[in-house]
């Protein structure tokens, strides 16, 4: 597979769901280079997931634009694929069929689909489960199938909406490591939304801290750490502390007038 990332340009993006509803977020501006991994962190309700849905072409923004390699995103495409919080696999299909469904939609020949699916299952270490029904798999394995289903499309950008939040600590750690290494190996962009600061440190090239109502990008922090990243590593710990402080500061601004101090528990810290 030869996958390349895209240049992402988000310009003055503003969104509200209906004409009478409040703004979800406003004037979001982000640029990212091909292959870069962005992790968006922020409290619930600041518009992180909505931003991701607009990037995926599943929602249209109220104003502003998203450009990928200078082309405006106007709808869904197999070039940018989203992974959701739950795997949302099709339970009437086997693992292989679930993984290959996107290629089937694109009318690929059976033989080519099989080859690509085998490759994608290899990437997520599920080769031996190709002919199992997805209902027979564990939560972590199901999320790996969802990852393979996204990877098989050879996306230029993979969007992840808190995809590991429902998993146990061990599975989460292993998927965090695998997704980042696959993204780096194949060269596609990652854009991920999470509440988990540890996850942001382990997976991001840049962490975007979103806060406020309507949401805004308050900080854009470069996470310049070598791979593979170990959460026990001192540099990782230091980055975590820096990100936590930034998150607190952003949360403090957000709650200005309501509370004078943001407590440690206000920020959701991963327990992995």
């Amino acid at each position, binding site marked *: 597979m030869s996958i390349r990332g895209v240049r992402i340009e988000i310009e003055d993006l503003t969104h509200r769901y209906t004409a009478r509803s409040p703004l979800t977020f406003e004037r979001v501006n982000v640029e990212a280079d091909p292959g870069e991994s962005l992790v968006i962190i922020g409290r619930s309700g600041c518009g992180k997931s909505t931003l991701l849905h607009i990037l995926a072409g599943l929602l249209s923004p109220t104003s502003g634009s998203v450009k990928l390699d200078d082309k405006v995103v106007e709808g869904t495409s197999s070039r940018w694929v989203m992974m959701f919080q739950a795997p949302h696999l099709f339970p009437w299909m086997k693992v292989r069929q679930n993984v290959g469904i996107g290629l089937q939609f694109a009318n690929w020949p059976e033989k080519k689909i099989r080859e690509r699916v085998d490759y994608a299952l290899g990437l997520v270490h599920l080769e031996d489960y190709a002919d199992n029904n997805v209902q027979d798999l564990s939560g972590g394995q199901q999320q790996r199938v969802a990852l393979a289903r996204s990877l098989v*499309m050879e996306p230029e950008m993979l969007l992840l909406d808190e995809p590991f939040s429902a998993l146990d600590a061990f599975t989460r750690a292993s998927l965090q490591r695998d997704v980042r290494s696959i993204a780096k190996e194949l060269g596609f962009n990652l854009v991920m939304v999470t509440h988990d600061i540890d996850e942001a440190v382990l997976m991001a090239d840049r962490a975007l801290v979103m806060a406020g109502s309507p949401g805004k990008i308050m900080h854009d922090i470069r996470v310049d750490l070598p791979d593979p990243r170990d959460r026990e590593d001192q540099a990782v710990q230091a980055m975590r502390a820096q990100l936590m402080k930034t998150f607190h500061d952003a949360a403090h601004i957000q709650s200005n007038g309501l509370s004078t101090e943001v407590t440690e528990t206000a920020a959701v810290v991963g327990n992995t």
Partner: protein
Amino acid sequence: MNQSAVNVEVNNYRVSDSLKYFGKGATNFVGGLAILFALWWIGIYFMSADPARQHFADFGPIPAIKAIGYAWEDGLVQSAVMSSGARLGLGLLLAISIGVPLGILMGSSKKFRELSNAPFQLLRMISPLSWEPIAVIVFVTWDQAIVFLLVIASLWPIAFATAAGLSKVDPAWFKVARNLGAKPRHILTQIIIPAIAFDVLTGIRLALGVAWIVLVPAEFLGVDSGLGYTIQDARETLQYDYLMAMVLIIGAIGYLLDSTCVFLIKRYSWTRGEV
């Protein structure tokens, strides 16, 4: 142990497990039927013991089974089953053609569901056979009237089951499919239809049961073929063994049709659990 070895072991276990279940099922099947036939035989034996009711003996299981052989040789069974089967098949096909789209409309449009709920519930509660006098007036032939009754009988279970199936479909599946490049036809054929297959087939199973029950009394009037007509004819010519033979055949075919539906539900259903 690698995954392939585990799969082989699991498959071996499944084969022996299946054989065990099959053996148990076959024992229950034969045993249950044997009890039914024994009770039938005992009942008729005591009824016909009184000389005044000796003619009741023809209602017994042995004359009925013998009569099935004679009726088969005469071609009576085949012609009755063919006529009834054609009416049932046409009626069910029309009911599915109307009921599934109607159910999809009910399941997908809140406005249509709310508007149609009262009239559909009212129509559903009308006994299908009570339409018979109207059907006889409206339709040119008895055959058409019977097919209409079968459609009316089987339409509602199919439509309501389809609507219920659609309401259980996870909306995220549509989002995922769109995200992977699905076009509307893909959403219909690869997401909606497989997702609701279990409920639609369950609705068809219910519809088949109702239609089969309605078919026989509907054939009592007007037509000169079919299982209902054959029973009526046997009663009028006092051939009680033939009458009971037809009753047995109706039960056996109904059981066979229901078992076919259960097989299809198991084959095409993705939900885990007993059918």
